[in-house]
């Protein structure tokens, strides 16, 4: 039995959805969407589920992740019901739903919660530095260890369980009996989409947006690798040093362009930014910028007299690692690629067995 649940709409509005209940079901959004296909048609189907409050339908759907938000649907919507922004808020809602801690929901709904968490983390870093009497070598060593432990812990405690929850909600619960063989057969899909985001190339006129995003992802991952595993800050190799400079510059330049886009609001995709969107791009920018200048200061041997810069970088890093990565917008990196993987899994099963 299904019942209309009007509360769901109100819930979605806290995640940024606007006016989607103006929809009169003409299907223009679906028809202009270049990623929508015969079987996987959206966004109208998702607007319908949201209007009727079919939480289970939304929960088990991968469609929000199949949309890469070009904004054509919102531009052409006869009712200005903004289906593109609904898809975006469904992604936020799903991120909250997948997260077992519930903190993702809090940070996606409330800007204040983000600010408070950021301040608490900053205070923590300062108090820690104080207890270490601002000992440069000790703190830098600790920071490097922290990076490694934070990555391992966040992945094991938060991200992995959340992906398992996503798998359960979208594959197991809806009744897809996926044979074991399909899991490793489709694994290629996961990595291709994780590192290339190639599906977003299907959006109309998206080459430039895709390329900028691609460069950023590769830059970010390389920066992570250079600082954490190659220990860029203390590495003597010229190659590693130059690589570090290059990728940190890539990260802050591209994110600067992204931030600018959100301020100018020229494209549909950047017209309505939520706190979680702002924190994500700004912190990524700050990470790139501070990492770059910390290394400049190290190479010029003036970091000792300007240790505040490292502390700033470290604070941003900790905020990034314990707030934005596990509970913020960072997770779309995983959910998007796993959605493509799970979608492939679901399609590997004959339709009858899914219906039960």
């Amino acid at each position, binding site marked *: 039995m299904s019942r209309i649940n009007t509360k769901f709409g109100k819930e979605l509005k806290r995640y940024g959805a606007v006016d989607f209940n103006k929809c*009169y079901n*003409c*299907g223009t959004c679906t*028809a202009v969407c270049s990623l929508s296909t015969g079987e996987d048609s959206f966004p109208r189907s998702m607007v319908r589920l949201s209007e009727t409050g079919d939480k289970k339908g939304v929960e088990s759907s991968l469609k929000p992740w199949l949309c890469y938000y070009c904004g054509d649907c919102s531009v*052409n919507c*006869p009712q200005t019901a903004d289906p593109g922004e609904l898809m975006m808020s469904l992604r936020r809602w799903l991120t909250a739903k997948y997260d077992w801690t519930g903190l993702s929901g809090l940070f996606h709904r409330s800007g204040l919660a983000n600010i408070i968490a950021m301040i608490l983390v900053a205070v923590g870093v300062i108090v820690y530095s104080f207890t270490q009497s601002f000992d440069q070598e000790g703190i830098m060593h600790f920071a490097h260890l922290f990076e490694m432990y934070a990555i391992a812990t966040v992945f094991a405690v938060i991200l992995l369980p959340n992906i398992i929850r996503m798998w359960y909600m979208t594959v197991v619960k809806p009744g897809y009996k996926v044979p074991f063989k399909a899991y490793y057969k489709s694994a290629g899909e996961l990595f291709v989409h994780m590192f290339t985001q190639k599906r977003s190339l299907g959006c109309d006129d998206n080459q430039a947006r895709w390329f900028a995003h691609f460069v950023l992802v590769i830059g970010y991952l390389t920066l992570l690798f250079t600082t954490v595993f190659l220990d860029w800050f203390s590495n003597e190799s010229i190659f590693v040093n130059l690589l570090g400079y290059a990728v940190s510059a890539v990260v802050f330049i591209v994110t600067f362009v992204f931030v600018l886009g959100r301020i100018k609001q020229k494209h549909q995709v950047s017209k309505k930014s939520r706190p979680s969107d702002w924190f994500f791009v700004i912190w990524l920018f700050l990470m790139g910028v501070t990492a770059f200048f910390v290394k400049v200061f190290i190479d010029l041997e003036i970091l000792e007299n300007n240790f505040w810069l490292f502390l700033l970088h470290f604070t941003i890093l900790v905020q990034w690692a314990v707030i934005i990565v596990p509970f913020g917008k960072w997770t779309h990196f995983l959910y998007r690629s796993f959605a493509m993987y799970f979608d492939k899994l679901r399609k590997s099963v004959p339709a009858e067995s899914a219906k039960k």
Partner: protein
Amino acid sequence: MQKEPITLTYDAIVIGGGIAGGEAALNLANNGYKVVLVESRLSVGGKMIMLSKVFPTLDCSACITTPKVSEISRHPNIKIFTESDITSIDKLGEQSFVVKMTQRPRYVVAEDCTACQLCEQACPVIVKDQFQYGLVGRKAVYIPFSIASPKVAAIDIDNCTLCGACEKVCPPGCIDFTMKPKEYIFNVKTAIVATGFRLYDPTNVPRYSYGTAKNVITSIQMERLLAPTRPFHTILRSSDGKVPDKIAYVLCAGSRDDSMGNPICSQICCMYSIKQAQLLLGALPMADITIYYIDIRAFGKGYDEFYEQAVSMGVRFVKGKIGKITEKENGNLTLRYEDVATGKLKEAEHDMVVLSVGVKPNKEAADLFKSHKLELDGLSFVKQSDPLLSPAKTSIDGVFVAGAATGPKDIPDSILSAGAASTEAISYLNQKSQ
């Protein structure tokens, strides 16, 4: 230019010579009032005279409009000015309006022209025929259309090369290139605004490919293809002259759509599309007709039955608004839409697409009134000061409104509102002067 404007006195002025304006003028004239009717185009009859048939009775539109038009033209109490623009209307007091008007030169002496068309044959210039909505060409000197009133030639001076060929062949010698605009001043007691509407311009929606894909036409163009006074003697598609056999109608092309700049329902598109579909099944018995719609709004008397009739005749109705139209190499068109009944995204191929274009206001009406403000509503249609109880009243006492000037209307409603406007005008004329 003449030295002094010609000053004339009438009881009422009717602005717009479409079916609403004509009906209002006729009602006033039959009650003994002297009426001046001002039309900006070359012929009276408005849009109705151009139509094929009317819904839901399938009466021939030309056959019911022309007797009405000729009655208006011959009425002793009605003076018609075509090709004329009002420049200002000032209200001096109750039952006292001063109207200034300019009549553009036709370059043909209307009284002498016999509509023999020899000038048309002689003219070397060919341009698109606006009265056939660009489907065929016409000459620079031309009779607007076969049932035009007055049926008199006119010279399109912007395209004329002044070669003088027409002047040489004209039997009564009525071509006169020295004609100048004429200025008039009318003293009238009341005014009726019947400025009608204009059709939505689908070039505003590039994804519908109107203007780039040849076989995408508008509903008024299809109306011409179906009319008794049509340019061809069958239905032909523009790209290659093929008789189409899979025709699609795209409803709400420029109606009920904020993104296209017209949020309201145009009220006529569902019905005229259903009508055209039925006429097409008569003209092309083997053709498949599909109507893509959001909702079918068949609200008037006999309208729903008319829709049911189309369904039983085999017209396909598909719920889903067309998102994109792309032209194929052979001139056929691919329509992308969501079949809302199944939720599936689909593509369909048609060899001709008709955009059922919506209704937009003629905003210019308000600019004519100088001393008093003729208020418009939020969508720039003429505002009715009391839409429920006195729908013909405007923001100015003594100025009444008829037809689609107040918003989208079908023909029966336009005629009704013309009746209301003329009655209100007569009541106003019979008020004791204050």
